[in-house]
C-alpha cells in the first residue's frame, strides 16, 4: 500500500528544494483572501495566479496551487460564519450553524471551530490519500454514469432533506436549479432557454448565479440591521475565544474524523467535490445527533461537520487528479492546467513512475496544514474586522465587489446581469423560506446530471430498467436515495399527526 522507496525519495526532494517552500505562504494567503472575499472564489484566485506557475518547477507549482486551495478551504468559512455568505459553495453548510453562532455573539468560537476542523480535515484527507491513493483510484474507475447520476441527484436532494420543515419547497428549489443548470446548448446541439442571447449559449454563468443567490440576496436582508452583530461587546475579536473554539473542536474528534472520511470519499468523485461533501457531512451529523442536536440554530457540530468535510474533499479530489487525471472541480481543473504546462499527465502511469513526487506533494500539503493553523489564526483578525463595519457601508461596497468579481469571472456584462437577476430571485426565495442552496446545487450539477443520464441511456441502448438492474451499486445508491427522501417526509407526517392528536 505504501512505497517506502517513494517515501524516502519524497523526503529527499522536499529537503533539497527550498524553492518549493517559498511559495507555500503566499499561496495560503492568496487562498484565504480569495476564499474570504464574497464574490471572489478559490478557483478565481487559482486561475489568476496560474500564469505564475510557468516560472516554477512542477512540485513548486502544485504546492503553490494546493496552498491556495488549502487557504481558500478555510477562507470561505469566514464570511459564511460572519455574514451568512459562503465564500464558495463549499461552505454552504457552514452557514447553517456558523452564522447563528455569530448572531449569538459566539463568532470567535465559531471561527476557532472552523479553523480547527478545516486544518485537521485537510490533514486527514492527505493522510487518507497517502494510505489509499491506489485503492481509491480503482474504486472511482468502477463508477459508471448511472452511479454518477444517482450520486449527483442524491447530493442535490440532500439540501431539500435538510430543511425538513418545508420539504416540498426544498424540492421545488432544487428542481428549478436543476433546470436552470441545463439552459444553453445541449449535448445534441439544441438551444434551450437561451432566448437568443449569446451569453446564455454556454448556460447560465454558475458562479455569478451563486453570488446572486447567496451573497447579494443576503445583502438585501442585512439592510434591516445596523451591524452584523447587534451587541458591540460581541463584535470584539479575541484570541482566547478563537482558541476556545479550537479546543471545542478538538473535543469532537469522532465528528471531525467522520467529516474527514466523508469529504475524502466524495471529493474523489469527479464533478461532485466539496460543494456536495459539506452538505452530505452536515446531513449525516444532523441525523446522528437526532433530537439532542441544536442543528440550524448554532450547533458547533454543524460547523465541524461542514468544515472538516469541505477541507478534506481537497485530498479526495487530488486522489482522482493524480490517479486518473480527472479534475474533481474548478480548483483541480486549474491544477490539471498546471500539469499540462509542465508536460505532466496524471493517471496510473504517473503514479507508478513518480511515486516520490506524489508523496512529496502529499507531505508538502501536510506541512501546509500546520502553517494554515498559524496563518489562518492571524488572518481571522484581518478578515473579521468586517463585523465592526456598519452595514450601511458594508452592504453597498460588498455588492459592488460582488458585481466586479462576477465581471472578472465571466469577462463580460453577463456576470453582473446574472448577479442582479439571481439576487432578486434569492431574496424572494428567502422570504418564502425556499432554500437557495438547493437551487445553487441544482445549477452547479444540472449539466452533469443530464450528461450522466444521457450516457446511461446510450450505454443501456434505451433499456434503462434492464441496465440498472444489472448494476448492483446503482441499485444500492438508488435505495439510499429513496430512503433519504422518504424518511423525513414520513417523520414530518408522524410529527404533524402527533401534534394534532395532542391538540384534540
Amino acid at each position, binding site marked *: 500500500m505504501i512505497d517506502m522507496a517513494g517515501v524516502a525519495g519524497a523526503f529527499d526532494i522536499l529537503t533539497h528544494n527550498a524553492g518549493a517552500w517559498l511559495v507555500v505562504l503566499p499561496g495560503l494567503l492568496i487562498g484565504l483572501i480569495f476564499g474570504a472575499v464574497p464574490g471572489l472564489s478559490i478557483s478565481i484566485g487559482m486561475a489568476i495566479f496560474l500564469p505564475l506557475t510557468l516560472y516554477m518547477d512542477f512540485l513548486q507549482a502544485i504546492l503553490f496551487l494546493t496552498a491556495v486551495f488549502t487557504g481558500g478551504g478555510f477562507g470561505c468559512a469566514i464570511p459564511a460564519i460572519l455574514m451568512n455568505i459562503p465564500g464558495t459553495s463549499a461552505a454552504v453548510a457552514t452557514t447553517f450553524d456558523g452564522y447563528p453562532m455569530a448572531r449569538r455573539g459566539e463568532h470567535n468560537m465559531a471561527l476557532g471551530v472552523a479553523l480547527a476542523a478545516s486544518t485537521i480535515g485537510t490533514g486527514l484527507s492527505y493522510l487518507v490519500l497517502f494510505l489509499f491513493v491506489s485503492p481509491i483510484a480503482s474504486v472511482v474507475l468502477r463508477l459508471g454514469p448511472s452511479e454518477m447520476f444517482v450520486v449527483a441527484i442524491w447530493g442535490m436532494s440532500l439540501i431539500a432533506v435538510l430543511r425538513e420543515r418545508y420539504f416540498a419547497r426544498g424540492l421545488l428549489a432544487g428542481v428549478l436549479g436543476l433546470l436552470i443548470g441545463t439552459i444553453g446548448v445541449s449535448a445534441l446541439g439544441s438551444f434551450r432557454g437561451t432566448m437568443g442571447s449569446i451569453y446564455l449559449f454556454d448556460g447560465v454563468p454558475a458562479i455569478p448565479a451563486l453570488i446572486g443567490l447567496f451573497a447579494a440576496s443576503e445583502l438585501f436582508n442585512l439592510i434591516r440591521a445596523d451591524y452584523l452583530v447587534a451587541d458591540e461587546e460581541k463584535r470584539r475579536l479575541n484570541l482566547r475565544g478563537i482558541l476556545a473554539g479550537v479546543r471545542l473542536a478538538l473535543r469532537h474528534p469522532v465528528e471531525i474524523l467522520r467529516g474527514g472520511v466523508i469529504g475524502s470519499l466524495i471529493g474523489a468523485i469527479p464533478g461532485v467535490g466539496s460543494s456536495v461533501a459539506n452538505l452530505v457531512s452536515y446531513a449525516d451529523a444532523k441525523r446522528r445527533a437526532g433530537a439532542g442536536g441544536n442543528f440550524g440554530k448554532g450547533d458547533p457540530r454543524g460547523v465541524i461537520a461542514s468544515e472538516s468535510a469541505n477541507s478534506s474533499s481537497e485530498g479526495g479530489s487530488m486522489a482522482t487528479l493524480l490517479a486518473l487525471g480527472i479534475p474533481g472541480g474548478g480548483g483541480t481543473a486549474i491544477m490539471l492546467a498546471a500539469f499540462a504546462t509542465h508536460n505532466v499527465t496524471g493517471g496510473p502511469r504517473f503514479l507508478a513512475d513518480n511515486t516520490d513526487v506524489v508523496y512529496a506533494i502529499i507531505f508538502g500539503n501536510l506541512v501546509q496544514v500546520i502553517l494554515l493553523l498559524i496563518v489562518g489564526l492571524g488572518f481571522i483578525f484581518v478578515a473579521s474586522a468586517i463585523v465592526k463595519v456598519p452595514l450601511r457601508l458594508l452592504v453597498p461596497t460588498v455588492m459592488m465587489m460582488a458585481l466586479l468579481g462576477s465581471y472578472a469571472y465571466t469577462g463580460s456584462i453577463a456576470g453582473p446581469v446574472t448577479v442582479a437577476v439571481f*439576487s*432578486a430571485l434569492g431574496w424572494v426565495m428567502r422570504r418564502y423560506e425556499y432554500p437557495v442552496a438547493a437551487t445553487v446545487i441544482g445549477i452547479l450539477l444540472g449539466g452533469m446530471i443530464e450528461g450522466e443520464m444521457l450516457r446511461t441511456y446510450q450505454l443501456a441502448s434505451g433499456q434503462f430498467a434492464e441496465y440498472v438492474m444489472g448494476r448492483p451499486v446503482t441499485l444500492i445508491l438508488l435505495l439510499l436515495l429513496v430512503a433519504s427522501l422518504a424518511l423525513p417526509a414520513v417523520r414530518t407526517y408522524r410529527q404533524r399527526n402527533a401534534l394534532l392528536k395532542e391538540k384534540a
Partner: protein
Amino acid sequence: MSRLRLRAPSWGHLAFIGSAAAFLVWYFLDAYGASSRLENLMLIGPATLVGLGLCIFLAAAEVLTLEGAPEREALPSIDPRVPAFMALLAAYVAALVFDVGFDVASLVFLVASLWVLGERRPVLLLVFPAVFTVLIVLGMQELLSVPVPTLLFDDM
C-alpha cells in the same frame, strides 16, 4: 380523518409559485420546440412534471390547511429601503450594460446607496465612495489585470 379548511393565502407566495410554474412550462415548451427527441427532454420532461406537481401541492397548501392546525406566523413587513436598494442595483447594472463604465457607475451607485441606507456624514457619503471606487477599479485593472471597462480611468 382530519378535515381541510380554507385560509387567507400569502399572495406574494402564490405569485412566486405561479412564476415558478410559468417558468417550468415555458422552459419545457422552449426545449421541446428546439428538439422533441427523447435525448433532449430526458431530464427536462420528468423534472418539469415533478416541478409542476410541487407547484400544485404548494399552492394548495397555501390556501388549504388541516382543521385544528396552528395558525402560521405573519411574514415580516418589507423595509422600504430594500426595494429602493434593489432599484439602485438594477440601475447600476443597466448603466454597465449601456457602457457607462465601472468607475462612474460604481461611484454613483455607492453614493446613492449610502444615502438610501441612511448615511448622512459628508466624508462617508462622498469621499469614501470615491476612494473605494478608485482603489477597487484600479486594483482590478492593474493588480489582477482584469480589463474592467471604465469611462474616466482610461485617460489616466
